[in-house]
């Protein structure tokens, strides 16, 4: 299950000097399995991870504590539970993986926390609640639970609530099953806090959180003849403020924005975002590298960001013809596409995320590198999530990949990149400069130093 937390004092910190002075404080948390999704909740106090084994591990941020001043901001394991088990579809003779594809938190409405977790076929609503009191003084049973002999009871007493060690329980409250023929790739909670969508390769369904036996199909791109299939849905998300608007991306590198007010079935998009392909960069793999692996609205709701294999693009929702920003993540891989196809790396689905103020975006790469792009200053940096390169209280050094010619000191050549070490999942705290980076089965949490 979840691992222990080991903290060193590295801080990530930006000042006005020409080069960002990056100091990182991080936790490395070792999971038993490959981490498959990472997500902060709305306040950022909780961080949920899902893994390939169907487990969910939730971390909670330490509150400020005068007795432990340095522990502010540490994330410790809060709850661990098995969300999904492997299943077998007897009708199709298919095994359904228990791997958690996505976790999405619900906004908090009471003391308990709720999240949605999904594998390929089934979405579950989990309630995570704390128990820190225990009733003592029962009449019919002993403190250790054994039933008392009725004849021994001579007096009645009222049980008293006494504090106990904090216990965090996770219980499944809803199971939304049997609505997807294809593999679920996305879930997104609506801003109305009552509905959410789930998307598979060909269809998007709209659910009500209270109702598990029905869902509405709002997008269906399955062709009448599957031989005519040319694209699939790769990601979908609700607009952060407009509860009738959502977007979905496709394997062809296009994004469609749909308005649920226009019709019940949103097969016709309201907006269609596509950047024309550059014919000079045509290759065997053009279709693969243009496939969008993630789409995320900005917090403001004015922009959205898409990730394809080699770049991240920022789109203005008011302009469909082309993105307003394009950031190259690892352009040096363009000449390696053949090998990346052979070893299947070209199919890796990288995610991307915004920071709380939408001024920066982050996405992962290979060799445990991840990239940050500052939209205001137009600066970008490559950092590495690894134990060796992160010494206590030392700054995280920016990394550089050497693309050709002479390799400078501290540069890494493209050929020595480790393509097994990939960072697919990253998350940014909704308000603070805290980031969570999943590197295979290690979770790194980097924090800004609060002066």
């Amino acid at each position, binding site marked *: 299950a979840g691992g222990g937390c080991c903290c060193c004092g590295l801080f990530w910190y930006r000042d006005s000097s020409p080069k960002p002075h990056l100091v990182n404080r991080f936790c490395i948390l070792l999971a038993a399995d490959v981490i498959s999704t990472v997500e902060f909740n709305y306040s950022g106090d909780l961080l949920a991870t899902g893994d390939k084994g169907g487990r969910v591990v939730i971390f909670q941020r330490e509150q400020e504590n005068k007795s432990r001043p340095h522990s502010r901001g540490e994330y410790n394991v809060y709850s661990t539970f098995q969300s999904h088990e492997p299943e077998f579809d007897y009708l199709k003779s298919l095994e*359904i993986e228990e*791997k958690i594809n996505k976790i999405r938190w619900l906004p908090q409405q009471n003391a308990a926390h709720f999240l949605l977790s999904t594998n390929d076929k089934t979405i579950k609503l989990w309630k995570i609640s704390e128990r820190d009191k225990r009733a003592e003084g029962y009449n019919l049973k002993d403190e250790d639970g054994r039933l008392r002999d009725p004849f021994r009871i001579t007096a009645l007493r009222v049980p008293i609530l006494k504090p106990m060690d904090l216990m965090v329980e996770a219980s499944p409250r809803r199971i939304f099953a049997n609505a997807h023929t294809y593999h679920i790739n996305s879930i997104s909670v609506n801003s109305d806090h009552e509905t959410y969508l789930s998307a598979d390769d060909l269809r998007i369904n709209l659910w009500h959180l209270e109702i598990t036996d029905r869902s509405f199909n709002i997008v269906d791109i399955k062709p*009448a*003849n*599957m031989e005519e299939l040319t694209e699939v849905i790769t990601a979908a998300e609700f607009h952060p403020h407009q509860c009738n608007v959502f977007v979905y991306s496709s394997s062809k590198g296009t994004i469609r924005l749909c308005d649920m007010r226009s019709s019940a079935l949103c097969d016709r998009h309201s907006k269609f975002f596509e950047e024309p392909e550059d014919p000079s960069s045509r290759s065997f793999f053009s279709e693969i590298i243009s496939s969008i692996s993630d789409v995320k609205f900005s917090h403001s709701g004015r922009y959205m960001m898409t990730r394809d294999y080699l770049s991240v693009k920022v789109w203005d929702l008011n302009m469909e013809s082309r993105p307003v920003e394009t950031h190259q993540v690892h352009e040096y891989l363009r000449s390696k596409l053949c090998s990346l196809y052979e070893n299947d790396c070209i199919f890796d689905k990288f995610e991307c995320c915004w920071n709380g103020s939408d001024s920066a975006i982050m996405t992962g790469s290979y060799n445990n590198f991840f990239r940050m792009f500052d939209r205001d200053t137009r600066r970008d940096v490559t950092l590495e999530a690894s134990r060796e390169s992160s010494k206590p209280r030392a700054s995280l050094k920016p990394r550089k990949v050497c693309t050709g010619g002479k390799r400078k000191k501290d540069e890494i050549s493209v050929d020595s990149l480790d393509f097994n070490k990939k960072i697919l999942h990253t998350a940014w705290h909704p308000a603070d400069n805290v980031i969570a980076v999943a590197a295979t089965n290690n979770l790194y949490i980097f924090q800004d130093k609060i002066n």
Partner: protein
Amino acid sequence: MECALDAQSLISISLRKIHSSRTQRGGIKLHKNLLVSYVLRNARQLYLSERYAELYRRQQQQQQQQPPHHQHQHQHLAYAAPGMPASAADFGPLQLGGGGDAEAREPAARHQLHQLHQLHQLHLQQQLHQHQHPAPRGCAAAAAAGAPAGGAGALSELPGCAALQPPHGAPHRGQPLEPLQPGPAPLPLPLPPPAALCPRDPRAPTACSAPSAPPGAAPPAAAASPPASPAPASSPGFYRGAYPAPSDFGLHCSSQTTVLDLDTHVVTTVENGYLHQDCCASAHCPCCGQGAPGPGLSSAAGCKRKYYPGQEEEEDDEEDAGELGAEPPGGAPFAPCKRARFEDFCPDSSPDASNISNLISIFGSGFSGLVSRQPDSSEQPPPLNGQLCAKQALASLGAWTRAIVAF
């Protein structure tokens, strides 16, 4: 983009990926298979264009060494067909293959050209079938050849048939295999890119995100447009009467080409035999029900049958008699396509090439099972008997790879 792998290796790798995805945990990943099918399509386009270019070059060299010979192996058919107008004489000399001697000398090349052509025919059939093109292609090609000045235009409309004509007659020598646009470095044939690969929608090639074919290739619209203006009005009637139109056979048996040699007055019909057999193997092939290819043409059909094996014997010995449809179209037992054919096809192929056919045969046998397993699947491709020839797989790869991901 430079790629360390050639098209053939890419095809092999891609097929391997598709095959292994069947056994992966969690079921087939539709997205990944779709992307792999795009790579397959791109690789196949390049592969075919390279093959055409190479064989065209070989054909050119060969033709320059050999003067044209009569097609003595063809049967004398011309006046046996009823309704044949005298205007048949207007048609230029069109022959299948080079002269007999030339064939004997370069059997492999001619054979390969023929097979490649059959592959290409299949693509075009898929396009033409959409448009319900009534006239056999041979007709239009014959007619086109009769108008040398407009040859380029008319030929361009039916590149498939044009390919069947080796550049024998002087005015037509270079032309049939020219690309639609004249260019300094002509491709042997315009590729049937998106149209063929999206056989049900050739009118909207851009709907399929098709890569542009190698530079100089014709836009798919051109390849798909032939039905719009077929051959001169006189010829369709003649040929339709004489032989069943491709559309009569349906998609599978439709690759049939008829050419008329005005010098020898020989009418030659080439059927795409192995496809024919496969079609016969499936239940719903119309041609198999017919004893003869067309009404009132028993003599022609009989001649055709006679001619074919004769031609076979005189051609290269490597020919597998079962491969090009030695049996008459009606009720022939299915002769499985021999896998060795692929090696004949690519004599210098790498070891990977034979793996392709292995994989395809594995895949082919498993595929219909795969599709039938999924309750959600729409129409299944017609089951294919025996083993698939890799080249057939290459030929049908467009629609076929779509079906791969369909489940």
